[in-house]
C-alpha cells in the first residue's frame, strides 16, 4: 500500500498552463476526491498521476518512489475511465484478465483472480459477454473489475459515474465507498459533482483554474471554507452572498450591515478591519429561518415545495438573488415579503480578496 506526494506539480500545453503548482499529501488508504468545475484541470492532474500525461515540472512520489519518468504500468496504479474504455472485441472475462495476461500470470492464477473480482462485483453471469451487450452500470462494474484484479496500490477514478442515470449513480457511489472500505487501498476520485465529493471523500481537494483552493475533510470545507470559491462550490444549494460594510469591530465579532441586511454581529477574525470596509457576507440557505425580528428582508420570487422542506427564491432590495431552505411546508406566496434571521455563528465574512475571515478554530 502506498500514499502519494505531489510536490509543486506543473503542466503546460504549449504556452497554456493548466496545472499551476499543486502540492498535496495523500495518506496510504485515504479516499481523496478532486472536485472543481469543468476544465479546472482535475483530469489532467489525475492523468499526470497515472502517467498518461508528462509532468512539466515538480515531483510526483508514489510510496517513496519518484515516479515522474516511470511508465504507467510500473506505477502500481489502476484507473477507471469516464468512458470505461473496455476493449470492445474481448469478452468481460478477457477484459478483466487482460493486464494479467500481459504480465504472463499463469492461467489458473489468472482464472482464479478474474473469478474473485467477478464475485466481489457480482458479475459472474456477465463473464462471457462482450461490452456491447452490457448496460452502462454493468460496463462500469467491468471497468472496476479490471482495476481490482491488478491489485494496485492506488485506484484512480475519472468521473466514473457521469454516464449513469441518477438512481444508478447513487447505488454505484455506495458500492465504491464499500469497495474502498473492503480493499483499504488508496483511491483518488475525480468529479465535478460536489455531492459525490462530500459523500465519498475522506479528504476533498477543491481545484479551480489549476490551483488548489482548499484541502480538507467534507465537514471542514462546508463549515470553514477558506475563500469565496470554496464557499460557493461546496454545499447545495449554493451559499448566498451579499455585499456589506463594517459598522463596528468589537474584539472578535464584527457588526456588518447593508441595504439588505440590518446590523448583524458575526464572529470573525477582525484584526485588519476598519469601520466602513466593504466585505462579502455568506450565509447558507439552510441557516436562514423565518423570524419577525430577523435581519434580512426579501421578496419571494419562487417557491419550490418538496414536502419535507420548502426552497424559497428571494430577491433582496439590492437585487441580490438568495435562496432559503425552510423546514416543512411553508404557506408562502410569490410577491410577498419575507423576514429571515440568520444564525451569526454560521455566517461567514470574506474580505476584498475573497478570503474568509475565520476565527481560529
Amino acid at each position, binding site marked *: 500500500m502506498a500514499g502519494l506526494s505531489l510536490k509543486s506539480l506543473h503542466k503546460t500545453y504549449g504556452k497554456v498552463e493548466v496545472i499551476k503548482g499543486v502540492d498535496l499529501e495523500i495518506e496510504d488508504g485515504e479516499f481523496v476526491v478532486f472536485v472543481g468545475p469543468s476544465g479546472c484541470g482535475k483530469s489532467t492532474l489525475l492523468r499526470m498521476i*497515472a502517467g*498518461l500525461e508528462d509532468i512539466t515540472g515538480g515531483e510526483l512520489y508514489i510510496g517513496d518512489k519518484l515516479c515522474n519518468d516511470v511508465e504507467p504500468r510500473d506505477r502500481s496504479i489502476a*484507473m477507471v475511465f469516464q468512458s470505461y474504455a473496455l476493449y470492445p472485441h*474481448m469478452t468481460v472475462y478477457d477484459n478483466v484478465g487482460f*493486464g494479467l495476461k500481459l504480465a504472463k500470470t499463469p492461467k489458473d492464477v489468472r482464472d482464479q483472480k478474474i473469478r474473485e473480482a467477478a464475485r466481489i462485483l457480482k458479475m459472474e453471469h456477465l463473464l462471457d459477454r462482450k461490452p456491447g451487450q452490457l448496460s452502462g452500470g454493468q460496463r462500469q462494474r467491468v471497468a472496476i473489475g479490471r482495476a481490482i484484479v491488478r491489485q494496485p496500490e492506488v485506484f484512480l477514478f475519472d468521473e466514473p459515474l457521469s454516464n449513469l442515470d441518477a438512481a444508478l449513480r447513487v447505488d454505484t457511489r455506495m458500492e465504491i465507498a464499500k469497495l474502498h472500505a473492503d480493499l483499504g487501498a488508496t483511491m483518488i476520485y475525480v468529479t465535478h459533482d460536489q455531492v459525490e465529493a462530500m459523500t465519498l471523500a475522506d479528504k476533498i481537494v477543491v481545484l479551480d483554474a489549476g490551483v488548489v483552493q482548499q484541502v480538507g475533510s467534507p465537514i471542514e470545507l462546508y463549515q470553514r471554507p477558506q475563500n469565496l470559491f470554496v464557499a460557493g462550490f461546496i454545499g447545495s444549494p449554493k451559499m448566498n452572498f451579499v455585499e456589506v460594510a463594517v459598522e463596528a469591530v468589537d474584539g472578535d465579532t464584527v457588526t456588518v450591515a447593508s441595504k439588505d441586511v440590518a446590523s448583524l454581529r458575526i464572529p470573525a477574525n477582525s484584526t485588519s478591519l476598519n469601520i466602513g470596509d466593504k466585505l462579502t457576507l455568506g450565509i447558507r440557505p439552510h441557516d436562514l429561518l423565518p423570524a419577525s425580528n430577523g435581519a434580512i428582508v426579501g421578496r419571494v420570487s419562487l417557491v419550490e415545495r418538496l414536502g419535507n422542506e420548502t426552497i424559497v427564491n428571494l430577491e433582496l432590495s439590492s437585487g441580490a438573488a438568495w435562496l432559503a431552505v425552510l423546514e416543512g411546508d411553508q404557506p408562502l406566496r410569490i410577491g410577498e415579503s419575507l423576514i429571515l434571521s440568520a444564525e451569526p455563528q454560521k455566517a461567514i465574512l470574506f474580505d476584498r480578496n475573497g478570503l474568509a475571515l475565520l476565527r481560529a478554530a
Partner: protein
Amino acid sequence: MTENASSVPDARHQIPLPAARRGRRKSLTAWLFITPAFLFYAAFVLVPLIMSLYYSFLRWDGIGEARFHGLTNYITVLTDSDLLQIIGNAFQLVLYFTIIPVGLGLAVASAIRGQMNGRFGMATRTILFLPQVIPLVAAGIAWSWMFASTGLVNQALKSVGLSSWVKGWLGDFVWALPAVGVIGAWVLLGLCTMLLVTGITKIDTSLYEAARLDGARPWHEFRYITLPGLRQEIGVCITVTVIAALASFDIVYISTQGGPGITTTVPGLEIYRLAFAHRQVGLASALAIVLMVLVLLSIAPVQWFTRDKK
C-alpha cells in the same frame, strides 16, 4: 413542404386500412422505389453477365455464325498451360497489390495515430493519397519511365553502387511481374492508408491508455486494439486490392502489354486479346466467367472473417 410532410401520417390515422392491405401497399411502394435502380442493374450488370455466360458455351468469332461448343471453352481455360500461367500471374499480383498497401497502410496509420489532427498527420495523408487522384494510365506511363534502362530506379541503384542490379525491369523475365506489382502497390497504397488512418481515428484513445496501464507494449496495442478496431477497414482494403489484382488490366496494358512473353499477362488482358485480336469470343467469355468465380471465391473468406461479430 412541412405541412405536406406532417399531413401524411395524419391521413393514415384517419383511414385505417386492414392490416393485409396495408402490408401489400407498403411492399408495393418498396418495389416502386427499387425498380429504377433494379432496371439499371439489370441492363448493365445482369444482362451482360448472362450474355457472357451464354457466349462461353459457344464457338464464335464475334461476327459470323456461332456454334454450340459445350464445356470445351471451360476445359481449355482450366487445362491450357498458358492460360493457367496467366491466372497464376494474377494471383502473384495479389501478393504485391494487397500485402504491401495493407501492411504499409497499417504501419503508417499506427505511426501517425495521435498526430492525426496535427499538421504532420494532414501532410502525410495528403502525400499518401496523391497516387489515388492520378489516372492509372498516367501512373503506368510514369512508372514505365522510372523502370526503363536509364530510368530513375536504375540511376538510383547506380548512385548507391549497385550497378550490377541495373536492368530493364519491365522487360526482364524474372522482374517484370514484381515491377508491375510495385506499380499497383504504389497506386493502392493511398487508398488503403486513407481508409486505415480514418478508421484508426475512430478508435477511442482511452482504449490505448487503458492498455498502457494494463502493461501493454506498442506491439500489444497494435495486436489487441488497432487490429481488431480496424477489422472492417482492413476487410474493405483487402477486398478492393484483391479485386484490383485479379481483375487488373490498365496498369499491365500500359507498362508491359503482358510481356516479355506472357510473364506479366493477366486474365483481364488475355480476355481482351482473345476477344478482339484472336476472335475467340467464346473462350474469352469462359475465361471471364472463371475469373469472376475466382474473384468471388477469394473475397468470400475475407468478407466472412471481417464481418461485424456481435
